[in-house]
Structure formats: structure tokens, C-alpha cells
């Protein structure tokens, strides 16, 4: 039972110039399922953290109230019963080692009597249909299983309002469907209020009661039901392409060859034993649902994770190659831009890439030109960690292009970028590889603007990796 009212809510991060949320006014009605959308990096997480009390709202910056009672006046020990948040990254939301211990920890915090705890755990796990995971180690679970455990914790704590921050980013489709089914059940049978932030809009059209968007001027607007079809259709389009790609024919130069390759995450099989080739001087796009194992495949290609079978690079087993030399040949553009950075300022990063570059295509003039193209000029002396997410992503890609390693693996290079930046990036990529003859292997959900760059398409789904002519 909770109507949540946001009144005149403004929030500015201490180091930021512009407010992340600007005079937000909105009421979330009790027992409703609200979808909160908007591009990445526009303040969805900030809003949810403010609503949970994980971020403190200065008292003169508006109010958040549950049934008329301001959040700041709710006793901290009662908050978890009022509102709970499920995080985007499934790896960073547990304090304990096993599923059962995490549930015990949460219930002890809620001061549940010890003789009631075991029963509550049994019920919560049964509700999410993961009773078999009870004594498993959290580290050994797949992304989907971890999010199911996170939901079981929330169910056990019996919070009235359930907030979810892009909860399906590394969850496979089957687990996503099952989680969504449970959420609907929690709304319909237990009267919970659910607010879910996501930028992937698949499957929501028929289940949500309300769609709220974060606008460009950092406010919230409720979308009229009449506009929903357009919104959902426009989203489906960015993930779809009518283009057909040829299937590779045999006598081309293999870049990577997989011999009986198998991938696992804990006890969860990601890729069944596969024989396959990736080709040199052609760009390959890898698509597939969340949690299918695409990033794990990249991690094994750069030897950051273990695998079964053999991977060869230009006919050498990659395990026999010296790490230092191999890293100069095959580089990975990490999904999280910050992972790539080694220095403090933009200029230092550019200087480092230029110093160690594999070729000399990127002269100072070309770098300056690329900076202009990507709208990064003027940020040279800025500390990289204060750039916006979009600027970080663009800088990261530029840094790895300057390196000119013969093979560049790109994990979701367009994530969180607006269309203008996507176009600028793709044109920079095209003009660069036309000269440097690099091979790109790209994992991407977002296809708009990217397709002209692609020669072949690999589909990673249902533990299988196969060349396909079309998407879907």
C-alpha cells in the first residue's frame, strides 16, 4: 500500500555542473507496474537510488513521500519493508557466500524471529522457483540465476514497493520471461507496487500499467497510452535490420579457429562444443540475447577466462602465444569504458595510445580531426572520470582505434550513444579500417547505423554459435 509522490525533486551530483534530475513532479500509484524508460545515463539509476534512500536528497531539493510520509522521516530500519531495490549488476548485490546465507542475512536485518526464518526462505525460493539453488554459492550462478536470487530476497523481506534498475542486462531470455511473470504475480496477488527501469522495451507492452519517460530536460512525463504502440515499435526497429549477409565460404583466411570450443559459467553451459572459423579482414557482427555468453566468448578470445577445447589465432594455439605479443595483435574494447582507461586526463590517454600504436596512421592531425568528429575537442585537459558516459565511450573507441591492433573485439561499442554520435563513430571506423585493414568483431544489440560496416553475421543463442544471413 503505497502511493509514491515525487515533489519538485532536483538532484545534482556534487562534482557535476548540470542537475541529473530537474524539478521532477510525479506520482506513482500503488499496486501498479510502471516502466521507467529513457536513454542510458539520463538519471534512471539516480532516481531509483533516491527513492530507496541510498542517495541522500538534500532537504531543500524537494521531497519523496510514501503515502504522504517523507522518506527522510521513515526510520531507516523500516525502510527495507517499505521499498527495496534490485540492481543492474548482479555481481554486486550480495554480501554473503551462499544463496541461503544471503537470505538469512536479509531476514536477520529485518529482525524476523529465528524460528520463522527457514520457513520464509523456503517460501520465497519456491515462489521464484529456485528451491534447488538454496545451498549454492552465489559466485557459481549465472546472471539470470543471481537476479532470481535477488528477487527472492526482496520477496522474503516483503517490501511493499519493488524498484528494479535495468535488472535484465545480463539475464538470458528464459530467465527474463520468468522474472517478469513473477513481478506481474507480485503486483496482482500481493498488491506490490513495481517500478522498473529499462531501455530495452521488449515484452512490456502488455504487462505494464504506466510508462514514464525521462525527458531531455531531466523531467519525468507519463506517456499517454495512445503513444505506447509508437514507442514500442520504434524500439523494435533499432534492434532489427532487413539486411542480409552472405555466409562465409571456405577458402578464406581463418583468423580464429575454434576446435571443439566449449564455454561455461559456473555450472551453467553457455556454448556447446563448437567448431567454427572467424575470418581475417572481414568484420563480423555477433548478436544474441542477453546472458547467452557473448562477452564470455570475447573474454576467452583474449585469455581472460578459461574454456574447453582449442582456439587458434592465425594457426597458433592462443595458449602458446606470449601474452604481451598476443595483446598487441588482439585487443578488446571492454563493455565498460572505464576498464580501458589507464591515466588521468584525456590528453594523457591519447598520448599513451599514440606512443604505443601499432601503426602510424594516427598522426597528431588525424587525432585532432577525429576528436572534432566525435565532438570531444576542448576536453583534452579534463579528468576522464568526470566525462559523461557517452564521451567516455567515444574516447575509449578512439583510443583503441589509435592503437591499430590487427584485430579489435568490440563489446557493445554503441551502448548509450545517441544517433549523432553513432553516425560519427561509424564513419570514423569506416575511414580508418579502409586504410589500416584491421579486422573488427563486434557484439551489438543496437544495429541502427552499424550495418554498413558488417560483412558476416554470427548468432549466439541456445548454446550455439552459427553464421546466419539475417537477424532473427
Amino acid at each position: 500500500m503505497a502511493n509514491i509522490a515525487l515533489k519538485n525533486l532536483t538532484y545534482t551530483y556534487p562534482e557535476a555542473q548540470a542537475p541529473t534530475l530537474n524539478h521532477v513532479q510525479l506520482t506513482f500509484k500503488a499496486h501498479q507496474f510502471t516502466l521507467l524508460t529513457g536513454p542510458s545515463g539520463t538519471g534512471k539509476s539516480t532516481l531509483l537510488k533516491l527513492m530507496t534512500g541510498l542517495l541522500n536528497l538534500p532537504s531543500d531539493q524537494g521531497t519523496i513521500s510514501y503515502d504522504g510520509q517523507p522518506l527522510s522521516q521513515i526510520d531507516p530500519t523500516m525502510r527495507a519493508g517499505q521499498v527495496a531495490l534490485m540492481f543492474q549488476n548482479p555481481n554486486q548485490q550480495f554480501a554473503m557466500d551462499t544463496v541461503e546465507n544471503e537470505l538469512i542475512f536479509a531476514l536477520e536485518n529485518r529482525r524476523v524471529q529465528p524460528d520463522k526464518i527457514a520457513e520464509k526462505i523456503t517460501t520465497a525460493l519456491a515462489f521464484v522457483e529456485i528451491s534447488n539453488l538454496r545451498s549454492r554459492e552465489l559466485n557459481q550462478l549465472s546472471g539470470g540465476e543471481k537476479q532470481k536470487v535477488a528477487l527472492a530476497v526482496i520477496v522474503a523481506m516483503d517490501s511493499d514497493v519493488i524498484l528494479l534498475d535495468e535488472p535484465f542486462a545480463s539475464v538470458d531470455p528464459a530467465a527474463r520471461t520468468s522474472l517478469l511473470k513473477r513481478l506481474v504475480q507480485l503486483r496482482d496477488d500481493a498488491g506490490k507496487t513495481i517500478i522498473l527501469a529499462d531501455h530495452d522495451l521488449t515484452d512490456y507492452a502488455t504487462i505494464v500499467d504506466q510508462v514514464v519517460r525521462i525527458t531531455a530536460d531531466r523531467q519525468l512525463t507519463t506517456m499517454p497510452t495512445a503513444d505506447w504502440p509508437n514507442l514500442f515499435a520504434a524500439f523494435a526497429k533499432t534492434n532489427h535490420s532487413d539486411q542480409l549477409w552472405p555466409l562465409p565460404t571456405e577458402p578464406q583466411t581463418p583468423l580464429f579457429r575454434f576446435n571443439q570450443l566449449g564455454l561455461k559459467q559456473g555450472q551453467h553451459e553457455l556454448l556447446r562444443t563448437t567448431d567454427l572459423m572467424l575470418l581475417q579482414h572481414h568484420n563480423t557482427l555477433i548478436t544474441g540475447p542477453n546472458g547467452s555468453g557473448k562477452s564470455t566468448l570475447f573474454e576467452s578470445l583474449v585469455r581472460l577466462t578459461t574454456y574447453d577445447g582449442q582456439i587458434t589465432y592465425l594457426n597458433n594455439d592462443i595458449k602458446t602465444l606470449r601474452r604481451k605479443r598476443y595483446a598487441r595483435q588482439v585487443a578488446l574494447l571492454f563493455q565498460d569504458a572505464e576498464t580501458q582507461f589507464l591515466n588521468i586526463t584525456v590528453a594523457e590517454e591519447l598520448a599513451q595510445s599514440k606512443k604505443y600504436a601499432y601503426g602510424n596512421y594516427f598522426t597528431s592531425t588525424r587525432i585532432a580531426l577525429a576528436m572534432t568528429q566525435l565532438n570531444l575537442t576542448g576536453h583534452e585537459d579534463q579528468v576522464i572520470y568526470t566525462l559523461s558516459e557517452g564521451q567516455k565511450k567515444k574516447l575509449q573507441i578512439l583510443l583503441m582505434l589509435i592503437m591499430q591492433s590487427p584485430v579489435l573485439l568490440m563489446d557493445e561499442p554503441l551502448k548509450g550513444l545517441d544517433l549523432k554520435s553513432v553516425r560519427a563513430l561509424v564513419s570514423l571506423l569506416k575511414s580508418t579500417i579502409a586504410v589500416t585493414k584491421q579486422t573488427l568483431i563486434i557484439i551489438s544489440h543496437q544495429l541502427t547505423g552499424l550495418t554498413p560496416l558488417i560483412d558476416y553475421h554470427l548468432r549466439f543463442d541456445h548454446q550455439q554459435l552459427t553464421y546466419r544471413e539475417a537477424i532473427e
Partner: protein
Amino acid sequence: MNPSIKLLLLFIIALEISFTTIISLNVALIVLAIAYLLIHHTKLRTIGWLLIVPLLPAIGLWSTQYINGSGNKTLMAWVLFSRIYTFVFTGATFTLTTNILQLADSLEQNWHLPAKFAYGVLAAYNLVPKIQHEVKIIRAAGLMRGQQLSFWSPKLYFKAVLVSINWSQNLAQAMVSHGFVEDAPRTHFRHCPLVWQDWAIFTVSIILMQVGAFLLPWH
């Protein structure tokens, strides 16, 4: 036995054997420790490994002392040799029979350490494998940019610290969102009793230790 009392007892034993040169005491402690492990169903293979792994350093110490030592070389060589095994086996009676969760429970319930401390340590402990993987990723990211980050490289530590700060914030938020409130009362599902028997075992062990050290030494 209560985990924190056990830990305290083992600390005192370790301290005392560091300052004594009594082979009989070391041997007696090893025998007792092995007996304790066997009672707690430790696998014979594990005990075998505990015997084999310290052998090289033990022989190293023995020969160094035997060749280069001063005074009673033979005695000191065997004292050092047996001392290594005493450390290993008494330590194993803790690490092989008590997990860190039990210790955290005991510290929180018996000694009223702040729950934040007990669970913070526990959470950090559970993060160790991920931190190891993260260091691997940082070094790979360095290599891909042409830079080898050695174990003494400031860049490696700068990045590792950044990542840790980020994680510790996320972890703190995760604990809060699972209902954890600093200094607020909690219930306890697992009970960790501290009873007079624990104190009795502790006292008797310390007395026996002194008997072995001062009344019945066999050099």
C-alpha cells in the same frame, strides 16, 4: 568449540612456541592437532598434503641451521623443523574446521563487535576471487595499450583502488538495500554460544602448555 576462543588459544600457542626451543612440546602439539583434525573427519589426503607441502621450507630451515647455525646446531635445526609443522597443523585446526562465517558470528554475538565490521569483513572476503580477476583484467587492458603493468606499477594500484572504491560503495548499498542498518538491532538465525566449557578447554590447554614447556621438556 567457540571460534573466537579457539583463535585466541591458537594465537597464544603460536606466540609461546615462537619463544621456546622444546622439541617435545612441538611434537606433542602436532600429534594433538592431527588427532583433533581426525576427530573432525578431515580427509587423510588433506593431512598428507599438510605433511608434504611444508617439507621443503622445513628442510631448508633445518639445513641452514645445521650448516650455518651457532651453538647447539642439531637441537636448533630440529626445533625449527618441528616448529614449522606445529604452525601448519595448529593453524589447520582452525582453518579446516571453522569457516569465516562462524568467526564473524562469534565476533558479533560474543564480543559485540559492530555488525558492520563483521559483515564488512565477510563481504570483502567473498569478493577476493573477483578482485583477483579484476587485477587480471587491468593488466590485460594495460598490455592492449602497449604497457606492461608489473606488480609494483603505480598505475595498477591506482586502477585497483578505483575499482575497489566503486565496489565497496556498491556493496554497502547492496547491504543497505537488504535491510542492513548500522548499529540497529538484528536477530540471529545461527547461534554462536560462548559457554563455560569453552573457557574450561581454554584454561586447561594453557596450563597443559606450561606443563609441556616448563615441567616435562625433552630437548
